């Protein structure tokens, strides 16, 4: 009887832990900037274009230093962190890298 109780408790704990970690992290959108219009940044990723919204709290950096939305020019490499599971993709942070040369 005690064994059954332990199995049930362990299963419940594992189920709860999985739920917590599935909901709290960030989704990373990695790609190059297509355009920035009306605070919506369109990023070309390996799976196609991905739009993310920038708001006043979005942290934009280049080499760990503050950067501006104006630096998000077409062709620039970016890594965008978006809270996982959010319906409207609002960027938590945008890291800017080098520009792609074509």
């Amino acid at each position, binding site marked *: 009887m005690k064994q059954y109780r332990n199995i049930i408790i362990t299963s419940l704990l594992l189920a709860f832990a999985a739920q917590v970690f599935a909901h709290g992290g960030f989704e*990373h959108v*990695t790609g190059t900037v297509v355009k920035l219009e009306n605070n919506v940044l369109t990023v070309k990723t390996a799976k196609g274009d991905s739009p993310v919204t920038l708001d006043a709290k979005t942290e934009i950096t280049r080499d760990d230093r503050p950067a501006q939305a104006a630096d998000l020019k077409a062709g620039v*490499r970016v890594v965008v*962190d978006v809270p996982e599971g959010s319906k409207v993709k609002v960027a938590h942070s945008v890291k800017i*890298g080098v520009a*792609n040369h074509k």
Partner: protein
Amino acid sequence: MRWFFLGVLSVCAVAILTGLALVRQGRGFSALEPPTPMERWIAREARALALPAGAKSRLNPIENSPETLAEARAHWADHCYSCHANDGSGDTVLGKHLYPPAPDMRLPATQELTDGELFYIIQNGIRLTGMPGWGNGSERDSEDSWKLVHFIRHLSQLTLEERKAMEKMNPKSPDELREEQEEERFLRGEDSHEAIPEHHHH
């Protein structure tokens, strides 16, 4: 005497019945709901009562210097980040899901505590919350905690550069480290984005 015991039994019975009623109503005791104002008040009062005489008025013996803040920043990034976040907002997976959730330490509820109170809490933790007691009785440990008190006062002035430096010191799993390196290579132009798999944790 008989009436006294009957009174105590009645109070206990009412408390149990109220608890059962709450559970049956479907509200239950989920840790995902924010604490009620009554719970917050009781917790704050209990914390104040738990402080021994003299702890509140203790002054910080460590000088507040850039070196002190740099040490405390590194300590915080390694030990406190998981629940409190680098900026003290409590905006992390663990911090948001604790009960009660980790507070935003930049707000008056924390900043209005005295240095002595903050030191006591770091050293002894807070019962029935996620805050552990970190004290081990050594002088070195006490110094580290006093330095953290200086850092808590600095939280609202934390710069973006400081936060970015702290991110590099946060505890990371091997997967997260690999992810970080892949992203840095991509940003430097060394990999194409086709080479970067989709990531879903941080």
